[in-house]
């Protein structure tokens, strides 16, 4: 979808710079984590070496006390290792959690700072994915992936070091594992991310289809779509199976290749060490220790390969999270203050796709206190004009201003105090009822909140809620009905108190059962304000001071209701048929 391209993704370099910057501020913690892990891994390498010595001593028939001493050394090394691991893991988690919190908070601040025009266009799908899936991938990578990879890398390299200390000639056979594993891993990591992404997406599609079948169960029954839904499920399953089989094919090559390679160090050390021992170049204990080390290489290499995949996903997630910071600002706030509350559009044209003007040279003066109704067929450009009049974005050509200042040059806070756009959309936020009403005016007193609710005729049910204004509503709290939600939206406006309102079909999606009731709430909000209403219902137009009829991006008729009836244009015809005349 074209919508997904609206929000940018940060490039590799930006991600790197950003991570480096964040790390630099925590250099000391990072150093401590690395130091502890290094020490712990080193301690863990002592036991095989000691066992090797025991083997040599047993072979040479050494004293019992010597064996006891070596066993005590193993125990001491283990104790040291476990204490170091304990502190290392804690320090690592502290650092990881802190970084994670920083990244997700920066992301949410980025979301909250997105320019109005982007929010209006981008839709919520992409942002939703970023806030859920990407934050989770990053969390998994940071909390488990980074420590696992760090441990694995340290273990592999230090184990090789231990082999070198034990018997330098035996390092070489350990290294023969590197070329095949390197090659096959590179191949795998090149193909795997896309494959696994497709796989998880195909599961998502399958679940979404099931959700639709369930959510639309009544529709499925009414339209007898059962057979189609089953076919749809089968098609989703086929796609999912294909995606699963693809990644399975990748694993079918990668796993045996990697797993078979893991045995090479052990085989090499044993064969090469055996020859060396038989020729008297090293002791049996040294061969034993090196063989045990070679065996110990398997687990961390496996870990490393497993987690590299997650690290890749985590990095991709981070680049999407950081991408938000690259959205350019859409306002050019100036210092000019409006002289009065006169809203004007002058010669305004606007296009979303270059060359396809949705609005053509529209001029409109809205007198303070005036009520304007805009009517016209869908696609005439009503909503676009509404957004421009509310200052959501600037016009391509012409200018929309209030008190002589272009809306786009007003700081957002200032603009909100002047004009508000009210659409069909309403949302009850997770939080108390009070929080929901005071969005635009957090300092509001309880009395003011109650007043606002009373104005929209919502105080009755609000006070009847279990904890009154403090009742938790929205997701996880008490569910409010659509009309209650709409009343909350209106109460927010009463508190925010802008002098001009642009209503874009604000009540059109309501159940007709409650629409009438809400219109009374609405009229309380509109009282004393300038109103531009994009109307579905002709009675709204009838009540307005001025009716504007739009067709094809232009104003085709304009004037008070009765004047338009006398003129006898399209509006008059519509009105007549509405009244059955």
């Amino acid at each position, binding site marked *: 979808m074209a919508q997904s391209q609206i929000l940018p993704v940060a490039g590799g370099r930006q991600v790197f710079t950003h991570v480096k910057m964040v790390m630099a501020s925590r250099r000391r913690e990072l150093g401590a984590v690395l130091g502890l892990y290094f020490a712990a891994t080193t301690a863990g390498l002592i036991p095989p070496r000691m066992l090797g010595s025991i083997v040599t001593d047993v072979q040479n028939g050494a004293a019992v006390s010597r064996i006891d001493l070596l066993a005590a050394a193993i125990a001491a090394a283990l104790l040291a290792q476990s204490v170091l691991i304990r502190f290392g893991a804690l320090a690592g988690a502290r650092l990881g959690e802190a970084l994670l919190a920083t990244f997700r908070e920066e992301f949410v601040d980025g979301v909250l700072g997105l320019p*109005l025009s982007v929010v209006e266009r981008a839709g919520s799908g992409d942002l939703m994915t970023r806030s*859920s899936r990407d934050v989770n991938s990053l969390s998994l990578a940071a909390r488990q992936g980074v420590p696992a990879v760090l441990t694995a890398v340290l273990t592999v390299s230090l184990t090789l070091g231990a082999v070198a200390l034990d018997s330098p000639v035996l390092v070489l056979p350990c290294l023969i594992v590197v070329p095949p594993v390197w090659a096959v891993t590179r191949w795998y990591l090149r193909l795997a991310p896309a494959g696994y992404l497709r796989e998880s997406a195909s599961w998502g599609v399958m679940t979404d289809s099931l959700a639709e079948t369930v959510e639309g169960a009544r529709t499925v029954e*009414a339209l007898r779509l059962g057979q189609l839904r089953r076919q749809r499920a089968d098609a989703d399953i086929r796609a999912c199976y294909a995606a699963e089989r693809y990644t399975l094919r990748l694993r079918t090559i990668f796993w045996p290749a990697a797993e078979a390679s893991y045995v090479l160090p052990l085989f090499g050390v044993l*064969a090469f060490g055996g020859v060396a021992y038989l020729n008297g170049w090293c002791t049996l204990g040294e061969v034993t220790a090196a063989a045990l080390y070679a065996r110990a290489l398997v687990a961390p290499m496996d870990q490393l390969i497993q987690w590299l995949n997650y690290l890749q996903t985590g990095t991709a997630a981070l680049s999407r999270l950081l991408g938000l910071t690259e959205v350019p600002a859409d306002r050019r706030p100036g210092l000019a203050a409006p002289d009065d509350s006169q809203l004007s559009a002058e010669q305004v044209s606007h296009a979303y796709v270059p060359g396809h003007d949705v609005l053509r040279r529209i001029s409109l003066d809205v007198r303070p206190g005036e009520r304007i109704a805009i009517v016209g067929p869908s696609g005439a450009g009503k909503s676009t004009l509404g957004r421009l009049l509310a200052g959501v974005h600037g016009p391509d050509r012409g200018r929309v201003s209030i008190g002589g200042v272009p809306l786009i040059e007003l700081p957002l806070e200032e603009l909100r105090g002047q004009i508000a756009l009210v659409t069909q959309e309403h949302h009850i936020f997770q939080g108390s009822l009070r929080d929901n009403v005071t969005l635009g005016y957090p300092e509001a007193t309880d009395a003011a909140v109650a007043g606002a609710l009373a104005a929209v005729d919502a105080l009755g049910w609000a006070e009847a809620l279990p904890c009154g204004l403090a009742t938790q509503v929205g*997701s996880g709290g008490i569910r409010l009905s659509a009309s209650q939600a709409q009343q909350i939206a209106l109460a927010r406006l009463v508190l925010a108190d802008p002098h001009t309102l642009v209503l874009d079909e604000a009540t059109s999606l309501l159940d007709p059962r409650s629409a009438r009731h809400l219109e009374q709430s609405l009229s309380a909000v509109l009282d004393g304000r300038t109103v531009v209403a994009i109307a579905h219902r002709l009675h709204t137009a009838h009540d307005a001071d001025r009716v504007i009829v739009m067709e094809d991006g232009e104003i085709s008729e304009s004037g008070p209701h009765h004047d338009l009836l006398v003129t006898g244009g399209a509006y008059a015809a519509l009105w007549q048929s509405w009244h059955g005349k």
Partner: protein
Amino acid sequence: MRQLPVPDPGTPNLASPSRFVLWLIGRQRGSVLLGMVWGSSWMIAQALVPAVLGSAVDALAGHRTIAFSWDCAAVLALGVITALTGILRHRMVLTCFLDAAFRIMQLVTEHSSRLGNTLSRLLTTGEVVSVGTADVDAVGGAIDITGRGAGAIAAVVVVAAILLARSLPLGLIVLIGGPAMTALVGLLLRPLHQRQQRYRDLQGALATRAADIVAGLRVLRGIGGEQAFSARYRSQSQELRRTGVHVARTESYLNGAEILLPGMFVTAATWIAAHYALRKVITPGQLVTFYAYASFLAVPLATLTEAADSIVRGLVAAGRVVTILRLEPEIAGPADPAPAPPAGATLHDPASGLIVARGELVGLAAENPAQAAELADRIGGYRLGEPAASLGGVPLTDLPVGIVRERILVAVNDAHLFAGGLTGQLAGAGQVSEPDVLAAITAASARDVLDTVGLDGHLAARGRTLSGGQAQRVRLARALLTGAEILVLVEPTSAVDAHTEAAIARNLRTARQGAGTVVISNSPLLLDQADRVAFLRDGVIAEQGTHRELLARSPAYAAAVTRGEG
């Protein structure tokens, strides 16, 4: 590889969750068994390595070159066998996992379709959807673990045999001490699980908070309050961070203990074994074998713990699936259905007095719109326990539900728009030609949707990419295309502007020529086009006539449809 999905998932055994899982296994008994065979070979190959290693050390110590060469070859061969049987096992159990998961998806989809309206009333979408996400994973997981589980048992048996053959006391130490250590570490894990649960809960709450901000972003950016939301998110995020560190503190002790406890056990076993070796009871190579097994044994034992856990979780999930599959439709239809009335029969609702004959376009205006909605449900055969509406004199309750749905369609505004192509969406279950589709789109004044989406274009689920008015007109076009004998349109133009509404009203008659149509609305533009308008007051048809007649005659009607203006 097997062909999936299977054409018919079959009839599951719903007697109990375990029967259900056994039924799933029974569909693919051979594959599950083969998975266990590969799993066992895979683990046994790994379990033999320490023995071979010990034998190699002894061969070296005794300068037996040939034996040593064989041992080296065996190490290599066991590595290759491990790699091969490992992937064979994985392929086999993955197929079994998918077979089970896909079968569950098919069963639940099929059953949801069969339950229809009942499902929406009894369960939330979330409950059913969790089947598609978590539960298929858990049930599949219980089947998946059979391969590795069987392998773990085989490995323990092989290791026990080898150790006991070498030295009875040393073998017993390892075989008793190893499981004891595993149990001890498992015991330590328990409190950690609870803390992790708290972390996950907080993580979920934080994700919900972020989703909430995103979902309400337009509102928030329109009216303000970003500071408060940022602060609230930050404090929740910091709480999660603190909990994370708190969990990590417990976890870090465990990380240490996981090294220390088994390590100390291995050390003790090795120390004892070394004394045996010094006394020549065992060879140096056997000492190496004991050492390696003392730590190796933790792997199959952990797998067994995991298997127990997977099976329990799988059964719990299977229980949820079984609960859904056991639900029965509320309106089951009569056991002994009456013969269906002939085509073009008249619909009669005795409770309100509404009659709709073939070829009629009836407008239904209501003083109280809630009662109109009840009436719609009644004439659609969705309500029980009231005098039923009848079609051609046959009460709807005497007809099979399928027949009722086929002949009477109640089109409501919350009808679901499914993700998929526009044509597919509109065609629904029927076979329709392109001219039909275009005619329905035109009748519903939905050309603008066609122009932006295209006939083959994709619609998002719930019509998310459409405006409210567009979605409503797509629903209308879909309802018109079914050509249902009786079509009940509930508020079909509530989200449409007056210009478009007028156009739709004019088109309705042509589109529904020869069939019975009820339009429930208080809009004068629609009612004016009806052959007859019925005015519903206190649940009964109080007055009938044309829109203009009623407007002139009945002040109550005029008030209801013009909202007291004009």
